[in-house]
């Protein structure tokens, strides 16, 4: 999988117009002289045939070496290691908040009768459709400029984290709640809930103790996808809130045709994605005893 990702990235970034040698020289239109360009092409092996460049970069990747950034002239591994933490923190906190909102919303919309159901559905649909850049701008206008509660751009502390996290979490919670509410309603109609009701359990207890567990399963499997969604959202959010992170690094690298950095970010995201799949598998097992039973049989 990692090999496929590396290969796709390597060739895709060469399909967009622009000379990587110019990335080294400060971006397109750098007015570089012939001597300068040739020097750079030699230094970075860009004068070699594409296949040779491809094999070289694969060989380096196999040994865990991500190469050196054309633009920033530092090892890609070092660069990304410094940026990874910020994005992971942002994504994990946003995911947690999205889950909280989704659980609250779906519990309320399935308990509160007809009105709550349609209002809940409305909120889910609306928030799922909110574009990040719009939401971020509105949040800054309201909570920074008008109310002065939170700083408009990142400060590196907790207060600066809140608006970016909310921007990422709200649309995601809409998606999660939609999926959860569907399963929750199905589950509430199933026989074991009927028997629980017959035993005299209250509605709240039924939802918390029995139904929610079922409803969470599709949401958990969705969380792997959600992380990808959050990382792509990070490109927008990190730019607007001026937060350091992978998203902003990726955006800059693509603009500058900084091939090693783009490849590096894509590979890191792929690794995170694989790890996340492992984690969601384990989480599904915890939530769903049937999966565990199947294994022991």
């Amino acid at each position: 999988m990692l090999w496929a990702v590396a290969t796709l990235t390597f060739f895709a970034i060469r399909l967009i117009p622009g000379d990587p040698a110019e990335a080294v020289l400060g971006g397109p239109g750098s007015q570089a002289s012939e001597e300068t360009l040739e020097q750079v092409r030699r230094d970075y092996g860009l004068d070699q045939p594409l296949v040779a460049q491809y094999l070289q970069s694969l060989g380096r990747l196999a040994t865990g070496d991500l190469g050196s950034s054309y633009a920033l002239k530092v090892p890609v591994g070092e660069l990304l290691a410094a940026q990874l933490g910020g994005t992971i923190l942002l994504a994990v906190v946003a995911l947690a908040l999205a889950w909280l909102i989704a659980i609250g919303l779906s519990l309320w919309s399935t308990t509160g009768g007809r009105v709550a159901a349609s209002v809940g559905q409305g909120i889910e649909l609306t928030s799922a459709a909110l574009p990040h850049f719009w939401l971020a701008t509105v949040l800054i206008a309201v909570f920074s400029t008008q109310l002065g509660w939170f700083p408009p751009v990142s400060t590196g502390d907790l207060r600066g984290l809140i608006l970016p996290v909310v921007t990422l979490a709200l649309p995601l919670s809409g998606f999660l709640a939609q999926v959860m509410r569907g399963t929750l309603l199905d589950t509430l109609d199933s026989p074991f809930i009927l028997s629980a009701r017959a035993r005299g359990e209250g509605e709240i207890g039924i939802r918390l103790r029995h139904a929610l567990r079922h409803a969470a399963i599709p949401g958990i499997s969705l969380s792997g996808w959600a992380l990808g969604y959050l990382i792509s959202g990070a490109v927008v959010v990190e730019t607007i809130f001026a937060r350091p992170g992978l998203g902003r690094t990726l955006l800059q690298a693509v603009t500058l045709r900084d091939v090693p950095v783009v490849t590096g970010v894509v590979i890191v995201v792929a690794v995170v994605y694989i790890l996340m799949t492992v984690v969601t598998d384990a989480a599904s097992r915890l939530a769903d005893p049937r999966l565990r039973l199947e294994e022991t049989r």
Partner: protein
Amino acid sequence: MHSALPPRSRRGLAAVGALAAAALVLTGCQATPTPPSDTPTSGGTLTYASGDAEPTCLDPHVGGNYPQALLATQVFDSLVSRNADGEIIPWLATAWEVAEDGLSWEFTLRDDVTFTDGTPFNAEAVVVNMNHLQDPATESSTGYLALGKVSAVEAVSETVARFELTQPDSALLESLAQPWLGIESPAGIARGMEENCESPIGTGPFVIDEWVKQDHVSLVRNDDYVSPPADASHEGAAYLDGIDWRFIPDSASRYAALQSGQVDVIDNAQPDTLAAAEEAGTLTELDAPRPGASNRIELNSGKAPFDDVRVREAFVRAVDINDGIDSLFFGSATRSYSPLSSVEVAAYSDDSLFDVDLDRANELLDEAGWSERDADGYRVKDGERLTLDFPVSTNQSIPAEQSLFEQIQATAKDAGFEVSISLLDLSGWYTALGANEYDIVSAPYTKLGPDVLRILFHSSGITPAPSGYFANHAQVSIPTLDELLTRASEVTDETERDELYADAQRLILEGYYVLPLYDQQNHFLIGPAVSGTRALPTVSTPTFYDAWLTD
């Protein structure tokens, strides 16, 4: 120091002292901000927020773009500077003399300056710097071009450096005044590119302390600073303890951060922001048009239909842009009628050539053979529609400018032009230009002095460089113009030089190769706590050497 968020207005309050005056500021009754104090005080860290891309290397010798120049202005001194009247003034060099034949320049240097790493500044340091700029391994673009006529630099004595030239260069002093030719410590350069990109070492008022990529650059005061340019307001070390240099790419976030007091100064203030700031009344605007060329639309005379001067004039007469500039830029941009920026003394303008006259445009197009119109109202000749390809760089044209181009598209239609705009990212845009797939284009060009005309309009600028880059987008090729521009770049007499450049600009304007729009916009907004900021009259980068914070 801005980790917590007490609104900056509180500082302003303390500064103004009188509560009544402060109340006036807060209620917005006052149109202009009250200067917090007239007496500079030392201390405090200023937070600067840049909307430009974060530089990939802080050494301005490498590459050489505007974001680098903004930072370099705080860290490096150049050999000479330029004052507000356009005269070259002493900086690290106290005097200079050019030989009779114009092929040799001697610069007398200050003998009391030391780089912030302790290396002494002397003629040998100048030699090392110029060699560094001319060495292909440095990967310099701007500085390399600026030294194009320099063949050798040598140290005559400890304090005299001699530049040998292949041809006389009337632009040499202006070239050397640019921040991309700031003088760096030879010991710093010797550390190699990687380290020198991280923390280049100069003689300037501030020192690079730390660069946290994608976040900020910390600058601290150089306590031993002795070498401000001749037009600075004070001597000795800077007032500020340091500068926290942040990168906030989003224009709305940048302004919000300034309003909340999280940052003190922002650059790339957009027209709508400037209008809002003026209304708010607590912020100061620094309007510092960049030198070199004005922002202009260039008409590609290298191919049909603009190879016919009548069609070019028809286009210029047909499009009405004055109202568009007023409304889209909220009055922050002034219409230009010159190929040069208004900060250039040599700028020549002629507004009579640009009167909007639709009848005249129609007449000219009929004459040029574009007399028929198709069903959509566009002119046709030999079955071909009068279509103009207009690649627009979304990196270089701000949203207001893109809207202006759409208005041009609409008004050109009245005369029967079909303007086909394509919005492209920088690489795509350069590719379109390199492939000659454009009839109209607009590209900014920053360079100190009128010699920019030679780069933009000399016929040698039509041939693309190896990187595909070429500057003569209008593809102007007039032998008499080439001659004027070459002669102007070689004469040492300033009056003569300005006359030659005026003649050259007349030829360019009367040939309808360009439609000047406005100066290259460069607006900064400054918070209420900051005083004493000015833009260096070289490439209009703000310097914080004379700036102070009121607390």
